[in-house]
């Protein structure tokens, strides 16, 4: 097989050419590019709270008011800012955070609101499928020759690249503890080498006759997949490689594993990781469930931010905590236990790190948490804000395949300037 491989003249057509000319080590881990930790380019971790977390029971408390709820606010490391008592560890890190309390977005159905908050465009408007934030970051900040995908989602499948095309589709890791699907060969290493050798030869033969661009792309994709299988960087997906002591800081459970995986990927150079935690759709039994969910995020989130800080990555990594909307200021009593319903009119998101000015709460809601009274932020403003924090030009126009220019953020976007 080896002399077959040596004649891989096809490789020069490939944009990657990863196997290079040295045959001896072609299955051995490839020499890694220097991990670009702490680089100037920014990265983003989106902690997606699926279902829509109750703002009044987390980051915009209204204690002592009607329907203010059961929870007590606690002081945080940011003077004058209080958050829920069930987020005690996060409270200690609020000097790095800015709460946007004036979110007001107008989409109150889960599906449509999720699309809106991920893309900054209403679903289906103008007959297009819009790219989600991760795909935008992949396009604007991603590195084309990097062995790992530039957009990774952990947990449930999220939103994709839309008209930006397949290059910016996310790699979905359904379960952080199990890593990337099919990353390991199903047959022995030597048999896999033989198989890939046969494939290389077939590819060369086909290309010689047909000279098809699609064949080059096919080969490039396979080479990138192979490179991922062999790359040192792919170890980032393997949580077993994390020292136990550090792993324990994140706590246990899927979300904890997701946060740890996100840090490992960001550290390796992936510019965008989305970690999903479901269960926030608390129409019933709101208080017990939000307490329990707060407990699920408090340790992992605070560990993530501390870990990023200690590794010198927090200034270049924006951590976004958000869901698709907030929950009604009024408590419903339809079920056995009180709940809160969908509420896009006034709610909160939280940003950490990424070079923003921390320790502040921007925007205000009225005494009930029902109406924004100061610095409203709509979905378009929010998209522009996150882009600006990441160093992405939100006014830039991307073209659809038929040449329609579409802004990264829609017209009229006003980023939240107090952050910068």
């Amino acid at each position, binding site marked *: 097989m080896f002399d077959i491989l040596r004649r891989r003249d096809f490789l020069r057509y490939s944009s990657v050419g990863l196997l290079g000319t040295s045959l001896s080590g072609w299955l051995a881990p490839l020499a890694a590019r220097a991990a670009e930790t702490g680089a100037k380019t920014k990265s983003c971790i989106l902690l997606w709270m699926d279902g829509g977390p109750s703002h009044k029971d987390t980051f915009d408390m209204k204690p002592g008011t009607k329907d203010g709820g059961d929870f007590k606010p606690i002081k945080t490391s940011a003077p004058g800012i209080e958050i829920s008592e069930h987020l005690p560890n996060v409270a200690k890190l609020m000097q790095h955070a800015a709460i946007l309390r004036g979110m007001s977005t107008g989409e109150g159905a889960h599906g449509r609101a999720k699309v809106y908050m991920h893309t900054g465009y209403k679903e289906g408007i103008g*007959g297009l*499928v819009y790219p989600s934030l991760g795909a935008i970051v992949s396009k604007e900040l991603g590195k084309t020759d990097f062995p790992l995908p530039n957009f990774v989602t952990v947990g449930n499948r999220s939103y994709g690249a839309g008209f930006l095309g397949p290059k910016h*589709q996310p790699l979905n890791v359904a379960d952080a503890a199990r890593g990337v699907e099919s990353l390991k060969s199903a047959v022995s290493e030597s048999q896999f080498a033989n198989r890939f050798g*046969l494939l290389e*030869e077939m590819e060369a033969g086909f290309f010689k006759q047909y000279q098809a661009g699609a064949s080059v792309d096919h080969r490039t*994709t*396979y080479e990138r*997949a192979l490179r991922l299988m062999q790359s040192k960087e792919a170890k980032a997906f393997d949580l077993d490689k994390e020292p136990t002591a550090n792993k324990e800081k994140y706590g246990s459970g899927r979300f904890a594993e997701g946060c740890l995986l996100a840090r490992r990927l960001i550290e390796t150079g992936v510019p965008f990781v989305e970690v999903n935690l479901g269960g926030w759709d608390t129409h019933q039994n709101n208080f017990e469930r939000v307490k329990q969910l707060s407990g699920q995020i408090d340790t992992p989130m605070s560990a993530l931010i501390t870990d990023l800080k200690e590794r010198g990555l927090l200034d270049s990594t924006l951590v976004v905590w958000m869901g698709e909307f907030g929950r009604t200021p009024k408590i419903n009593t339809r079920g056995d236990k009180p709940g809160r319903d969908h509420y896009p009119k006034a709610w909160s998101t939280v940003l950490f790190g990424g070079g923003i000015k921390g320790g502040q709460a921007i925007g205000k809601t009225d005494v009930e948490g029902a109406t924004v009274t100061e610095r409203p932020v709509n979905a378009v403003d929010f998209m522009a804000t996150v882009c600006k924090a990441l160093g992405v030009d939100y006014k830039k126009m991307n073209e659809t395949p038929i040449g329609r220019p579409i802004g990264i953020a829609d017209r009229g976007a006003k980023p939240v300037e107090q952050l910068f």
Partner: protein
Amino acid sequence: MTRIRCLLVLTAALVGVGSMLADDAKPTDPKAIRKARQEARQKAAAEAEAKTKAEADAKAKAEAEAKAKADAEAKKKAETAKSTPATPKLDHQPLTKKIDDEITKRLTAEKVPASPKADDAEFVRRLYLDLTGVIPGAAKAAEFIDSKDANKRAQLIDELLAGPAFGKHQADIWDNLLFQRTTDNRAVKKDPLTEWLEQKFNDGTTWDTLVTEILTSTGNQEENGASTYFLATLSADKMVDSTSKLFMGIKMECAQCHNHPFTGWKQNEYWGMAQFFMKVRVQGNTKNAKNGATPGVTESGQGRQRNLPESAKAVPAKFFKGEEPKVGRAEPMRPVLAKWLTSPDNKYFSRAWANRVWGQMFGSGIINPIDDMHDERVPSHPELLQDLAKQFAASGFDVRFLYRAVCNSETYQRTSKPVAGNEKDATLFSHMNIKAFTPEQLYDSLIAVLGEPGRDARNRPNAAANAKRGPVSAREQFVAFFDPGEGTKSTDYDAGIPQALRMMNNAFTARNSGNVAREITKGTSKEQAIEKLYLAAVARRPTSEEMKKLTAYVAKNTDGYGDILWALLNSSEFTLNH
């Protein structure tokens, strides 16, 4: 069980005694009947073939006559057997000639050489993929390649156009176009539409009738699969976007919120078309199947239209670039629209189909993008496009007519291998453009080689996958995973790293290739075994050079055949329609 059965069938097919996998249908009545009909047709074709052969030996001129005769006989046979598609109203041959003339004219003018005719192996695989959506079985491929019949290409075209897989493939194409998943239609079942389309395409329903039935459908999904189209689309504006794109080949969507920047189309024209859908009402829940009965559609006009965007304008109903029809208050609007839209006088209607079919078959339309034709876009072959549209209308909107005319042309039958001087050409049709498999083609072709995913495969149906819509089939999951998403061109290979990883390392391909290869190659010589693997995966025999290397390879490696099959299934040659 299924996998074992398919394996057996496959093995049988490979040793030449079975029929192709696609025919391995459930013995339900209509299918059995169809099968019987197909066998009858095959028998008739065999007779015609023998006759043609005898005459072909006599003289070259007589051969042409015999061909015409055989064609006439096949037509007659189709008529008497009341075979599903009606006898073509219009002879395709003048149009076939026109295609070649127009393509040659431009190639000559541009001094771009044409590539030669594709060999039989290249042709048979391409034709199966383009007309039936799946690669030919090994036995079918070998039979075709070995046949000495001079008329075999035309015969295979007729056979595939008449077979049930044609309708199945068309249903795949059109349900993807008619039904795009959004959060608003997430509980709407797609199957009723797929089944409806398959049946209509196989019944020989003409395009104008089919579109009319889709556009005017009422009733719930169970009664009328066509009503799925509105349930998937759900609002008047999106119906304008979709119908203008699919049935008129133009994209009006830009004019929804503002006047179109370069076509001069006005926002009022967009909303004038939208009025035709304003009386349509959805019954039942489209977001959650657990609540309520099967959703459906009426055109009562009672109650409010849901889901209209802020840009909606109240203007009178008006045909695009046409008149304002008078419609009574209580009368339904959609039949009025459908009548205008599907009329032979509506130049958009026939042109949209013509350019779409051309784009499907050649990987590039005469105008591109194929569904965004406006005056600013210059067609590569304006006269040809006009003729294709005109003749399609003259055929009575016979859906098979353009496929038959195209497939019989020299232009379609050219190799996709470039020759010196035409390597860069992608729009003059000097050689066939190479198209990447759709996810459906990839899945069905993998199944054709490997059998259905069995218990050991990880991507089998997962009942818990989507509780709101019920269990998702293995095919649906595979298709969703390999879906390249918006805005992809058929000539681009768009799968990413996750897809390549799955193709290489999932048990379905990684382990099955070993098992299946063992079955295929049992009790044969090395050369026969390798040949079978090649025929099964890429519908050709290996070259002598390949044979030499691979026989040496299997002599040295215990699982050598499995390795070869794995490599074949992961190759460009497999996953590209060339």
